[in-house]
């Protein structure tokens, strides 16, 4: 007899969704979170895409702790003195069922965990899971925590312990961890009056803006983001770990550089720093994904590197919620069938493969590497911005040059080889097209 049916480790979006589906299937579930409340340890850029909750929490939008609904999405390309923005707006995203929303993670995760409790899961906070309990066969049979009398046994353990997942590592599911597969995200939450935000970002009511930024991170490969909350802005950068040391540039200085950029400065001016925060992102997608199933163990969310970080997309919460949901379902299936081995738990793999979770990752397999490559980071933005600048520049009495000529000249000037451009273009087309 085990103490409980399922132990879910980690009260992030993956963990709470796993606890919800497992508990609703009638299992005895314990959800363990190391922070004083779910969400207290968690930071991210700032936009969730919650449509995956449609089935789990009908009309979630009526109760979710949302800051603003994203109705405007921009992608910005920055060079030190230029900015090229593609800006899209849809009023449809400002009404149910919505698309993206800005939200604070301490609120979002706390709310989701409340649903896990309502489903019957027992939430235990302020408790670190320090290791796995294993049977002689190696099968996972429970967890050890940092509390006195802290062992707890279960039929299935679902590790949703985030990017550093010591549980997946302990279970030997990662072959190795390599710094080059991770980025560091740092962010500032800046307070501004709502009216000022509305005006600067040209939105009304509870509508908001999501700006993804390429360039503007100094010499360090990465990207930036700027999101609107109700009365704060979230501005931050995502930085390739292995480049930080090499460039001798400190994270907060890179944010400061971004905030000083002529295209960004007027948007964030006078924002009072409310909170500075940092977190690591598993950036490499399919390249770094571990095995996600072992006897008695499932791994979901960032713990399984399921975050999708591919330039214009930075989605992790939706992947975490979905994978957690599926892990909870698969665990329930296995418990019902009485087969707790990796074979019995294989329903998890099937669900991931059949849905966006792995389909998106497969499609975008090469995107993270492409987006963080030196050419995309340092050469193309300058080239593209220069092309735009020449297209829009009026050089009278010279006549307007043709686009093709500008392209050829700017490619050469930027030092981009035609062969590389063609190849990167092809990978980009295959990924994003």
């Amino acid at each position, binding site marked *: 007899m085990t103490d409980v049916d399922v132990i879910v480790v980690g009260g992030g979006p993956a963990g709470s969704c796993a606890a919800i589906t497992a508990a609703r299937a009638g299992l005895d579930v314990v959800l363990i979170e190391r922070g*004083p409340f779910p969400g207290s340890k968690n930071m991210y850029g700032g936009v969730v895409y919650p449509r995956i909750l449609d089935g789990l929490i009908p009309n979630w939008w009526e109760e979710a702790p949302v800051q603003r609904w994203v109705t405007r999405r921009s992608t910005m390309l920055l060079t030190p003195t230029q900015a090229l923005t593609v800006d899209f707006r849809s009023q449809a995203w400002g009404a149910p069922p919505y698309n993206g929303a800005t939200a604070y993670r301490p609120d979002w995760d706390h709310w989701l965990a409340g649903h896990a409790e309502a489903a019957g899961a027992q939430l235990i906070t302020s408790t670190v899971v320090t290791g796995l309990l294993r049977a002689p066969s190696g099968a996972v049979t429970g967890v050890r925590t940092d509390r006195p009398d802290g062992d707890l046994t279960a039929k299935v353990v679902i590790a949703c312990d985030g990017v550093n997942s010591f549980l997946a590592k302990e279970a030997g599911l990662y072959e190795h961890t390599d710094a080059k597969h991770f980025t560091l995200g740092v962010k500032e939450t800046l307070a501004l009056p709502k009216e000022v935000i509305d005006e600067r970002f040209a939105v009304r009511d509870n509508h908001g803006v999501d700006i993804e930024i390429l360039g503007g991170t100094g010499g360090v490969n990465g990207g930036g983001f700027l999101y609107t909350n109700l009365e704060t802005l979230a501005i931050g950068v995502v930085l390739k770990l292995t480049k930080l040391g090499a460039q001798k540039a400190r994270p907060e200085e890179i944010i400061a550089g971004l905030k000083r950029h002529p295209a960004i400065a007027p948007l964030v001016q006078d924002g009072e720093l409310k909170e500075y925060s940092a977190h690591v992102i598993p950036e490499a997608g399919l390249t770094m994904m571990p095995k996600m199933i072992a006897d008695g163990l499932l791994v979901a969310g960032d713990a399984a590197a399921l975050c999708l970080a591919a330039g214009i997309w930075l989605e992790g919460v939706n992947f975490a919620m979905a994978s957690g949901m599926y892990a909870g379902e698969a665990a329930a299936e296995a418990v019902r069938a009485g087969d707790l081995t990796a074979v019995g738990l294989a329903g998890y793999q099937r669900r991931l493969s059949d849905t966006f979770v792995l389909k998106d990752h497969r499609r975008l397999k090469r995107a993270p590497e492409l987006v963080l490559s030196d050419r995309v980071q340092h050469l193309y933005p300058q080239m593209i911005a220069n092309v735009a600048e020449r297209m829009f520049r009026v050089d009278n009495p010279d006549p307007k040059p043709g686009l093709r000529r500008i392209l050829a000249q700017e490619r050469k000037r930027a030092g981009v080889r035609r062969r590389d451009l063609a190849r990167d273009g092809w990978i980009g087309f295959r990924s994003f097209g």
Partner: protein
Amino acid sequence: MSSPIIIACLKWVAHPGEPHDERFAGASPADRAALELALQQAKELGGTVTAVTVGPPATETVLRDAVAAGADRAVRVDGPAAMLSSDVAAGIAGVAEGAAWVWCGDYSLDRGTGSVPAFLAAALGAQQALGVIDVQFAAPGPAARVTRRLDGGRREVLDVTGPAVVSVEGAVADLRRAGLGALRVATSASIDVVPLRSPARRLKAVVQPYRPRAMALAAPDGSPLERLRLLTDAAAATAARGETVTLAPPDAAARIVAALRGWGYLDS
């Protein structure tokens, strides 16, 4: 004789930095220390610990934490969120009657006045030792040697025998970490709810000075010497030449204000 009852008084307080956010609320460090001492003393005496709080249902979280840590019984005296200290004490006294010992925190995080323990001792007719910074249990029987902090860095050592009300500072003891099993049980433990004996008087508006939340800060910039000079020397010290005058109180006050203004202390 039945086993002695030790009381631990706990107050649910909001986080000074997030006063409207229940996720940040809980017992103050001083109250947690009081609970730890209650648990230790109960073990010495073979007694039981009753954790008591006064307030609305939301405050029961501090009681569940106490049960998880080892309290045998949890009682909530049902009352409004804000009450006069004397009413709080009267509410607790209803539960603490006949107890061998009552432990309280000396100040709560929410700018408490620290007067509940004194009212409580009066209501129970018990001995009191307030603002205690060290406790040594003196077996056998409910007795302890406690050290109080006095002004000017002096100390007072008292031998206290129960029944007594003792209020302690947060640094006196670290509350033990609740075991996992106990914590799981505590989330559904039953809590006794008792009414206030006499209705609480309405608390009129309380003026509370703004106090930013306490936080740990890194050491300041600059050498210690530089800082010392900055803090003690320069402008203020040279400007502040002493002066002895005899004035009527209102005039004296006006003079002091004028002097402070002259030295730049009142410029905003």
